[in-house]
């Protein structure tokens, strides 16, 4: 039956996540100002607190389901701007889980594995990937050369799952993935990138210079299976975007209330002030995007792999974060620009979600191809 109410079990987890987000928010400005410092694996305040992400993943009886709950926990975390528990799961782990042999999986299952796809000349376009692995017959090793950029968890991960061209001993060529552990000679992690926002988000470039790895590290993901990790992550990114957006909305509502501006949902356009009307429209954008995220997550939970729905959630969330964070600053006026308040950080953080892990344009291509029955060649 159609229902949009959280269960008691949902609320318990989400309340806990929200309390932790309130703690996280206290640290958010510090790490915004100190982007070279990694956040701790666990903040001191978190020592005696449950990890709501883990609880959500493990499944809670009486909840709306682990997928839905996980996305809502993520939303709360991004509301605070900083997780009290650093994630041990990287998108490289998803590749490992999907395509590795049992032996490979066993070896690295407890590693945090970043995923390394993007290159200076290639975002979503595999044709431009230049990183190459050649096989050295003498040593039985692969030798990787290339550069990867914008790599999340680059510094905190134990290893990177690298999408690379390969030239095999038999001369055959293609695209594949290799697991490169930290400390492997020839593998260098660059400094933290200087970003507009999400400055606590560990992001560096990676350099591979004659980096030698054993054949056992060849995980044999192809381009498609590697990119498919983003299928799962898309609605999650939508949820993250909405966490930042809701922080901006909540702050604005709070300041409105302090100034005695009442938000009434009863009357229509002609009964409202300009700022209240706009605020309601921003709230509607939030609500619209949130429901597309829940819809996508609900489908996953029904074991109906979402097709366009994951892209819809990502596109809607990314757009919502842009519009809402920009809009809230405008509604509150000049004082909202100041670093004394969290809104300037929301404005900067909120701009990433429509860019990374498949920009809004890529999501629209995916949606359009699907609804029109077009291939990637038909529409690009």
């Amino acid at each position: 039956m159609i229902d949009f109410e959280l269960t008691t079990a949902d609320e318990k987890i989400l309340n806990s996540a929200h309390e932790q987000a309130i703690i996280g928010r206290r640290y958010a400005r510090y790490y915004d100002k100190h982007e070279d410092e990694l956040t701790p694996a666990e903040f001191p305040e978190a020592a005696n607190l449950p990890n709501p992400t883990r609880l959500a993943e493990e499944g809670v009886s009486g909840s709306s389901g682990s997928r839905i709950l996980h996305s809502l926990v993520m939303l709360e975390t991004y509301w605070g701007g900083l997780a009290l528990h650093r994630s041990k799961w990287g998108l490289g782990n998803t590749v490992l889980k999907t395509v590795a042999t049992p032996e490979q999986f066993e070896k690295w299952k407890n590693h945090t594995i970043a995923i390394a796809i993007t290159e200076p000349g290639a975002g979503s376009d595999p044709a431009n990937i230049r990183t190459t692995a050649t096989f050295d017959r003498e040593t039985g090793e692969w030798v990787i050369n290339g550069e990867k950029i914008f790599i999340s968890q680059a510094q905190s991960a134990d290893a990177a799952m690298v999408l690379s061209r390969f030239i095999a001993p038999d001369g055959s060529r293609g695209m594949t993935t290799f697991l490169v552990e930290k400390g492997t000679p020839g593998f260098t992690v660059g400094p933290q990138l200087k970003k507009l926002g999400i400055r606590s988000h560990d992001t560096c470039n990676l350099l591979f210079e004659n980096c030698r790895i054993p054949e056992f590290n060849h995980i044999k993901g192809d381009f498609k299976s590697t990119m498919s990790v983003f299928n799962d992550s898309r609605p999650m990114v939508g949820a993250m975007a909405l966490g930042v957006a809701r922080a901006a909305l909540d702050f604005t509502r709070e300041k409105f209330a302090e100034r005695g501006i009442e938000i009434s949902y009863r009357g229509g356009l002609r009964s409202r002030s300009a700022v209240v009307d706009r605020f309601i429209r921003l709230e509607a954008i939030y609500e619209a995007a949130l429901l597309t995220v829940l819809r996508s997550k609900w489908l996953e939970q029904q074991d109906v792999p979402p097709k366009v729905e994951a892209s819809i959630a990502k596109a809607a969330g990314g757009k919502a974060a842009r519009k809402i964070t920009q809009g809230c600053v405008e509604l509150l006026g000049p004082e909202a620009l100041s670093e004394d308040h969290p809104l300037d950080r929301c404005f900067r953080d909120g701009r990433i979600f429509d860019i990374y892990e498949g920009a809004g344009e890529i999501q629209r291509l995916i949606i359009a191809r699907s609804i029109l029955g077009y291939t990637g060649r038909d529409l690009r």
Partner: protein
Amino acid sequence: MISFELTDEQKLAQSMVRDMALTALRPAARDADDREAIPSSILDEIWSTGIVQSQADADQGARSATLNAILLEELAVADASFAIAAAAPIGFLSAIATQGSPAQKKNLLPLFAGDKYRCAAVAIMEPDFGFDVSTIRTTATKTRDGYRLSGIKGLVPLAGQCSHFLVVAQCDGASEAFIVDRDIRGVTVGEKKPNVGLRALAMATVSFKDVDLKPAARLGEGAGCDVQRIVDSARTALSAIMIGTSRAVMEFVMPYTKERVVHGDALAKKQTIAFRLADMRIETDAMRWMTWKAASILEQGGDATRQAQLAYTYAGEQAMWIADEGVQMLGGHGYLRDNPVEMWYRDTRTVSVLEGAIGV
């Protein structure tokens, strides 16, 4: 528990109405717009779905605001006016069923259980520039024997066919609703007044001149009613209808732009067209979930005011954008009455500024 699952019964009803909408209703839409009237055969088709009568069912479980939202969307894919022909009596009946006194339910609901189309409508809007649902001017003053109702209501759908109106008026400083038989003294149904859209609905002004009402005419009688709930129900219904029209546009322009070749390529292969189609899909999805959420809260008896406002506001913006882009994608053909898109453009601007008059 968060769920987007339709019950089997809901799926069946949705599929039945979807079929009927495309086979029986859509072909009649243009002609009804031209003639500014809905043929009685179409009204009977709508009636045959049972969607209106179920509101009058004594069993409360037979009424479902969520199901109504789902079915109004499907009807509106055929034609927004036709959907409102259902939503008008639904709005009236659901107000009676949820807020009426036992006597009001007993007297009124059975009238709508027959097998012929019958209309009644909520009368909220007033013919006044700058009308807002929060600033009603029609008044009901207490008299020795009941109430005296005075005011003018505009844009009443199928006004000429309504047996009753549920008139929202100011009464002792609060909003109340009054059940008014169209045949009593002082009630005048005006000539139909053509509007830019929803022309088939033959909307008209209804004036109430010193209409004397019994105390029993007040919705909920002594207890009164929550007018906001009627507005919430109306906004939710209007949102559902805007999803339907948006889907109609989207489903019409997709094959059109795939077939239309410009500079050697299908129009749909141009990124600007393809991305707008993607956005149409994104927004119709979002509109639907927002509408379902508002309907679901209504159905569970909760306070749906915020959700209904958000759903209606969002649907209004997005549906207008979709209809406007639909016209644009057809180019000159979109401007001709040979194609339905210009009608959807007119209907959408109309639906998106109405407030009240219908319900889920």
